[in-house]
Structures are given as C-alpha cells and as structure tokens.
C-alpha cells in the first residue's frame, strides 16, 4: 500500500511546477501520441482475433462445421426412433442422443459465430482431416446413413425399427468418434478439445449400451 502511494504523491507534487511553463509547446507530442495510439488500436484489432481464434480454413472450423452436419443426422435418426419405437429403452436412449447432440450443435455453431466464421465452409466435407480422401461418399461423411437407409428407418416399426436404429446409430457413433479423436489430435484449442473429448467418451459409453440393446432386440 505505502509503496504505491509514495510515487503517486511524488508525481502530484512535481506536476504543478512543470505544467505552467511548458503548456504552450505541448500540442505535438499529444497529437503524435493520439495518432500512434489510434494506429496501435487498429493494428491490435486486426491482429488479436487472428491470433486468438482459429481461421476459416482451420481444422477447428472444419471440425465444427462437419460435426454439426454429422450430429444433425444423429438427431434426425434419434427423433424418428423416439417418436416411433415402442421399446422404452430405445425411446429413452434415442431421446438422450437427440437432446445431447442437438445441444452440442448449439455449442459448435455458437463458437463459429463467436469467431466471426460462417457456419458454411468453402472446403469440401472432411477436408480438415489429413487422411480423409475418399471417405466422403455422395456428400456423406463416415458413419452417416444414406437417404435409402433413412427412408427405410422412417417406414419401419416395432422390432425392425429398433434394430435398424441401433445398427445405424452404431455405425454413426463409430464415424463420429473417429472425427472427434482426429480433432483432439489436430487442435490445441481448449474448447474444441473439451467438447471433442466429451463426444468420444459419451459416444463410447453409448456404444456399449447400443451393443447390449442390439443383442437383446435381435434375440427377441
């Protein structure tokens, strides 16, 4: 406390003595300081976001966009099962998946918006993953169901619906986990690593549940 007040007191004492005589010749340093400050501010404004946020072509942005697409289909399949299944365990699991992944889409979209990046990329799907060549078929990322499979799921009912849902979601989770693991590998962004890690652990534990439910439903 006393250390900080001492220089302050010294400064205020010294100030009145020096102010009066030099006032007439002061404008140039002030103007120079204003201009310099303005330039520094603009420069910092330009540079800081680029240093602190991943760019438009970064692995982070690619992951957020592609995982949003990937998640959206999981939500679609889960909502179909949630609405049409008669098995309470499937209804619960599909509701859980739909709500979780729709919520995670919100996180991912919000970060893109926060970083001033468009939710739609100019690069093809999966381009942010180095070994992804050929993994996108008809615009579908690994693990994603085809329009025909979705159509079949839409029309299914009873045990056939449950088995189709579990089978499709199993493949979907495997593809999603691979993407999330790749994101953790490529990115050192705290948010990305945190969310991707929760996807890996969450979906891995769901895979165990899916496998046990598959055994049950296929057996019945």
């Amino acid at each position, binding site marked *: 406390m006393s250390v900080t007040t001492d220089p302050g007191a010294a400064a205020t004492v*010294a*100030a009145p003595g020096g*102010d009066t005589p030099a006032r007439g010749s002061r404008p140039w340093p002030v103007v120079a300081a204003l201009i310099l400050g303005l330039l520094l*501010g603009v420069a910092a404004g330009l540079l800081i976001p680029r240093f602190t946020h991943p760019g438009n072509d970064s692995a982070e942005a690619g992951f957020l966009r592609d995982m949003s697409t990937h998640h*959206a*289909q999981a939500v679609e399949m889960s909502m179909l099962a949630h609405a049409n299944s008669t098995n309470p365990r499937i209804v619960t699991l599909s509701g859980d998946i739909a709500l979780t992944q729709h919520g995670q889409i919100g996180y991912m*979209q919000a970060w893109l918006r926060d970083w001033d990046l468009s939710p739609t990329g100019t690069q093809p799907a999966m381009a942010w993953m180095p070994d992804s060549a050929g993994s996108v078929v008809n*615009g579908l990322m690994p693990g994603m169901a085809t329009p025909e499979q979705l159509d079949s799921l*839409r029309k299914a009912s009873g045990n056939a619906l449950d088995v189709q849902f579990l089978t499709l979601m199993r493949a979907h989770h495997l593809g999603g986990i691979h993407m999330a693991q790749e994101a953790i590998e490529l990115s050192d962004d705290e948010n990305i690593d945190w969310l991707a890690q929760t996807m890996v652990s969450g979906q891995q534990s769901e895979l165990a549940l899916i496998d046990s439910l598959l055994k049950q439903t296929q057996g019945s």
Partner: protein
Amino acid sequence: MSTPGPERVPQSVKVDKTSGQGKPPVSAAKKAAGRGPSGKTPAGKGGGKGRKPVTPVKVAGSRPWGPIAVAGVVVLIAVGIIGYGVFAAVKGSRGWEDKVADIAGVTNYREQKNAAIDARDHKEGPQQYVTSPPVGGAHNSAWQNCMGDVYDQPIANEHAVHSLEHGAVWVTYKQGLPADQVEVLKQKVQGKEYTLMSPYPGLDKNVSVQVWGYQFKTDDVNDSKIDQFIQDTRLVSSMEPGAACSSGNTSTGPLAPAGAPGAAGSGS
C-alpha cells in the same frame, strides 16, 4: 566558490550588456557566430538577448517526466481502446446480408417490408403467396424435412416456407428440366443439412434458390452464383436460430386437407 563562477560564464556577458559598453558584447557575438555552425551554445543567442538563455536550461531541469509518461501511456491506451472499438464496430457490421447483396441478381424481399412475406403465423390449409416460389409468409405448422432432402415431386409451399424460416435453402427447378441438369443441382444439396430441393411447376426460370426473404433465379444450373448464394445464406438466414431441419414432413404433393394437422412426417 561564488565569486569565480559568475565572472567566467554568461553572467559576465550579461554584466557587459547592461553596462552599455560597445566593445565586449560585439567581440563576444563574433566569437559566438564563429562557433555557431560547429556546435550550438547558449552564447550564440545570448549575444543578442541577455536573459533568455537562462530560462530553457531551468525548465529542462525541472520538467516532471514521471507524470508526463503516465499521462502519455493513459492517453495511448484510451485512444487505442477507442480505435479498436471503432474498428470492431466497422468490421462487425459486415454480415451475411452484405455478402448476399454482392451477388448480382439476388432479390432482397426483407427490405421491402411486405407484410404478406414477413408474416410468420402458423396456419392450417392452403396459403396464398405473393412470389413464386414463395420466400416467406404464413405457413403450415409442419416444416418440410430439409436435411439435404432431394424430392423428385413438387412439395407443398406451406411446408417449404416453414423450412425457410428454420434457415434452409430451398433449391427449386422448372419441372421437366433434363435429368443431367437436375443431377448437377442434386450435388449441391445432397448430404447438406439445411438444404432441400424439389421441382416447381410453372417456374419462370430453370432454377430458383431461396431462403427466407431472399431469392436468386437463373437459367444456368452451372451458375456459380447458385453456390455462392447457398454458401452465404444457409443456416445464417434462419429466423429461429437452433431450429431443426429434421422431424419434418417428408411426403410430396400439395398440402394435406386442413384438419389433418402436420405430422405426415413419419408416414409413408
């Protein structure tokens, strides 16, 4: 101590000047002029005006550099913050709307403030729309599934407009367009959530793409402005951020008769 000092330095000049004698000041001025170019000395000016050389020396010694530096840093930071604020404000103002406005041929219906287009009510039964295809207005409570769905038959406007409200890009083409051209359009939609595609009877151009409040029409399926439009508007044009494209109606054809609300989605 005090006696030799004043006699050697300027003070002696001062004494001569005030005494009014001609010679000593002149010789001093000559010496000063001779030294002038090689090195500036107070004596140079001192030759003419006796008192002034003393003043600058005095001020330089007592100038409070500490407060000046503190004030300078404070001013610098303040101006920097203002400068950044201005910059951020200017940069932040360029959103997707500005990007769409740069695409030649896009019609902006949002700026027209047309109540029939801006309406967002949910209404059962067939609706009238002021543009073809519609870009907004009252719509059915069920949206058309827009998870990159490619419909090979016309779909109900009342469902599609609800998809636009959710942030989807609706790609429509003149019914009867050659299959290879339809295939080109299909590549822009399939697998891409928040898009949907369907033929549109009586369309005045080969292709019309629309989001809520914006429309672009062209006869060329390879027009790169189609891709630009999709790129700049998909998702961000949503009137309900976070609203889904799944769980929508997937049947084609005109609207189901009023009284059979929505839910045709999971049916065949």
